[in-house]
């Protein structure tokens, strides 16, 4: 029984990405280097179209005998992830051109990675999940080492690959245990199974694997190294689209495959501990960083910790908060990495935070936008990040996770220090020379995300309602 309509409703954006990706391989094989330049914009167009399709088929549905189940929760994350992917691709164009690595394979890898995200978001079966995870990961490993002549980039790719393969192995082992003790790989069947010790064991291993994917402590060690070593536009991609998707998948699996009371109590505590560890590691780790990419890497660890507080709060309470917080975080992140990409002097990229000295007097627009984005990512009022953090706090309180709320407060204050230090460097320090001009895509991404951070703060109601209704779709 093949119901085309159901397949399209549940899987349209991914079908588009898959066909575009495969077509891209063919076209690339025929046209070779002539395809390099145009592929970036075409790829971005495809990703935007995929985001549009996620909106059109918002409610999704089931397909492929229950291997795929798209719901509004997933569609929300897809829309955000694909849009970020498109922006990252556009920002990469000029950067790669300057480094003479502007190749159409980059576009294809981003599209396949995005396809992997779509698959894991829509998965309702462990097999689909694992396929998607691997598709996303393998594309990411190659992307991290895309500057294959640079030792740092190669190192980042190798590190990412070795650790990522280990995490995938752990995840797969967890899946096999879960399958063994529940007799099924479908989320629904697992949810209905008897939560015995074996199932719990498998669940813990799965959490370990997933924690690696969202770079939560103690599985975070790869993050700063990969952020520092991988080419900046790749990091702009890593820090946004897969983060959004992985976190939402993390929540979806916990909410739909392990909703039983016994399981819930177990994973709530485990995820709570991971969240606490991430918040603290992220806050303290970033204090001494002077490389902006490493600093943002630690900042992302801390922010994943905040998001995990919302995950730990459970579907009914925390679902909407996961979406809102992650959306606020990726909007600010893509802009901040646009800022990182703007840090260019004498043909090379500079990454030391002191290079931002006195930016407000040299490039006031850029400095203003970055200040807003830092305020947003710090969860401070006047930007959308505040509403994200408020939702997380609300979820934490509502679920009675008082220790996590207190740790969140402490780590927010500590983290505020390094965001403030960046603001200080831009506003107070004496200016150094200008950055070289960058392409319009980079600066428009910075301005757009700053504008979106402010705009969504002031007009928060529609997005909040959307997140609320989307979260309703993963309720057991």
């Amino acid at each position, binding site marked *: 029984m093949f119901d085309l309509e159901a397949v399209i409703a549940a899987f349209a954006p991914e079908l588009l990405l898959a066909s575009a990706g495969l077509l891209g391989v063919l076209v690339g094989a025929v046209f070779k280097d002539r395809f390099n330049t145009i592929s970036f914009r075409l790829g971005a167009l495809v990703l935007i179209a995929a985001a549009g399709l996620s909106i059109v088929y918002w409610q999704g549905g089931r397909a492929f005998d229950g291997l795929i189940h798209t719901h509004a929760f997933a569609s929300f994350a897809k829309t955000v992830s694909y849009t970020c992917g498109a922006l990252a691709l556009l920002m990469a164009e000029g950067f790669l051109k300057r480094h003479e690595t502007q190749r159409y394979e980059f576009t294809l890898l981003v599209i396949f990675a995005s396809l992997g995200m779509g698959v894991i978001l829509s998965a309702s079966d462990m097999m689909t999940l694992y396929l998607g995870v691997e598709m996303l990961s393998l594309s990411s490993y190659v992307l991290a080492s895309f500057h294959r002549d640079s030792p740092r980039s190669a190192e980042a790719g190798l590190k990412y690959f070795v650790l990522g393969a280990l995490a995938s192995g752990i995840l797969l082992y967890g899946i096999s245990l879960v399958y063994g003790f529940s007799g099924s790989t479908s989320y629904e069947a697992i949810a209905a199974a008897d939560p015995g010790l074996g199932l719990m064991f498998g669940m813990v291993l799965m959490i370990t694997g997933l924690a690696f994917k969202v770079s939560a402590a103690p599985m975070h060690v790869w993050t700063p190294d990969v952020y520092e070593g991988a080419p900046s536009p790749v990091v702009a991609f890593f820090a946004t689209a897969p983060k959004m998707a992985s976190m939402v998948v993390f929540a979806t699996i916990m909410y739909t495959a392990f909703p039983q009371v016994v399981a819930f109590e177990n994973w709530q505590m485990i995820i709570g501990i991971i969240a606490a560890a991430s918040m603290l590691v992220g806050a303290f780790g970033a204090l001494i960083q002077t490389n902006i990419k490493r600093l943002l890497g630690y900042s992302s660890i801390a922010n994943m910790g905040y998001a995990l507080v919302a995950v730990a709060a459970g579907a009914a309470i925390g679902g909407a908060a996961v979406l809102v917080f992650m959306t606020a975080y990726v909007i600010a992140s893509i802009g901040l990495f646009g800022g990182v990409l703007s840090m260019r002097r004498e043909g090379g990229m500079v990454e030391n935070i002191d290079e931002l000295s006195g930016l407000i*007097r040299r490039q006031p*627009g850029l400095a203003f936008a970055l200040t807003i984005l830092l305020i947003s990512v710090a969860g401070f*009022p006047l930007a959308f990040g505040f509403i994200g953090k408020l939702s997380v706090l609300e979820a934490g309180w509502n679920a009675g996770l008082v220790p996590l709320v207190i740790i969140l407060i402490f780590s927010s204050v500590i983290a*505020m220090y390094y965001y403030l230090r960046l603001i*200080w460097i831009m506003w*107070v320090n004496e200016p150094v020379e200008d950055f070289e001009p960058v392409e319009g895509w980079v600066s428009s991404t910075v301005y757009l995300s700053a504008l979106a951070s402010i705009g969504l703060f002031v007009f928060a109601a529609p997005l909040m309602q959307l997140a609320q209704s989307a979260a309703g779709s993963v309720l057991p």
Partner: protein
Amino acid sequence: MGFSILSAMTFLPMAGAILILLVQALTKGQTGEDAQDNRIMYAGLVFSVATFLVSLVVFFGFDHSALGYQFVEEVPWYAGIQYKLGIDGMSILLILLTTFLTPIALIASIGSIKHRITEYVAAFLILETFMIGVFCSLDLVVFYVFFEAGLIPMFIIIGVWGGADKFYASFKFFLYTLFGSLFMLAAVVYMYLAAGTSDIMVLETVQFDPGVQTWLWLAFFASFAVKLPMWPVHTWLPDAHVQAPTAGSVILAAVLLKMGGYGMLRFSLPMFPDASLLFQPFVFTISVIAIVYASLVAWRQTDMKKLIAYSSVAHMGFVTLGIFSFTEIGVQGAVYQMISHGLISAALFLIVGVVYDRMHTREISAYGGLVKKMPIYASLFMLFAMANVGLPGTSGFVGELLTMVGTFQASTWAAAGAALGVILSAVYMLTLYRRVVFGPITNPALEGIKEINTKELITLVPLAAGTIILGIMPNLIFDITRGSTLHALARLAGG
């Protein structure tokens, strides 16, 4: 509802700041080359004076005899949170204080701020918006947003135009306040979840369980105690004051500190009455410690600004004593003391700024014998020093007297401790005055010092007038604040 004057008043300065930044960006492209351009200062002044005029319109449209909030306006934000503004007697006075002092702070900066004027003016105007917003908000989350957002412009003001040790001072200021405030945010979220709304007017009628109240009260207190500041979390204040430029100190002492007292009256008392009663001895203890300790520390200071900063800590001790006396007279005195201290501390920082601009030092020992060179300055200094001590006839007297009367009714020993503070305030202020103004001129550099100029007189005379008028006719304030005082005390049984 139509035209909403409170929003207009709140966002007028910010609109001005954005306009100034835009014009500057379009005409020059880059800031920094406008070193001596005072036109931007005047443009900022126009906006802040306009805001002052709007606030006067609100003030005269305000019905003093009516109870409850007036000019209420409400726009839903999201979920149970709304952008809701409204004022009562206490808030309109604090708003007036804010809009009155911002132009004065800007005038005082003309000539003494020599670089990055555009950003300076913009920072002050944006700060003004947030300060007015704090006093207008009738929604807890909106209040929190304004309360916190004000940290950023102040951080920049201390950071860019501050003294040598500005990094330490501005980070300490920011992180201390943020740390206290995040506990308040956690409590706000809790209250929002419990009541389903963050509307202050609704929350005032919610009865929280006494055990819960204790925690909520402590969380709010963490924020307000840092902001006020109370001993032992006051240490950011002297650092921030010493490093901040004169106008920054003026706004910091006159308005930002008042947010703490305002918060206690607006939230702690009406929303957590049981906890407030429970913690009365605790607040009295640390207030008295603050008054005596800060006064003694002030006495030993060698830096003029630091001395005045510690004296602010001591005077804020009177405010908390008055608020937690739970008597009408005590709370009235506390509100009065906040307004009065706003005028006096602003004036004292300006007074220090006058000689600092000439000599570039705040060391008390570098001065002496100023009366011979600057007689007008010496008389104004005398007036404000006496007002700070609490001389009858000045506004300082009324505030201290009433808070002590109120405290006396609640606790004799606390009032006795506060009285000791009054004596000590005379000790340190008179010591300061004698060492700076009287005696022989020991520092040869002082021989050429110039008398106070017109610009400085323009900033100081209104403050002097305010201090004296309020000292002679305190009913001007009491009639307006009576409603909010009774409202704050309404739920304290036996208050």
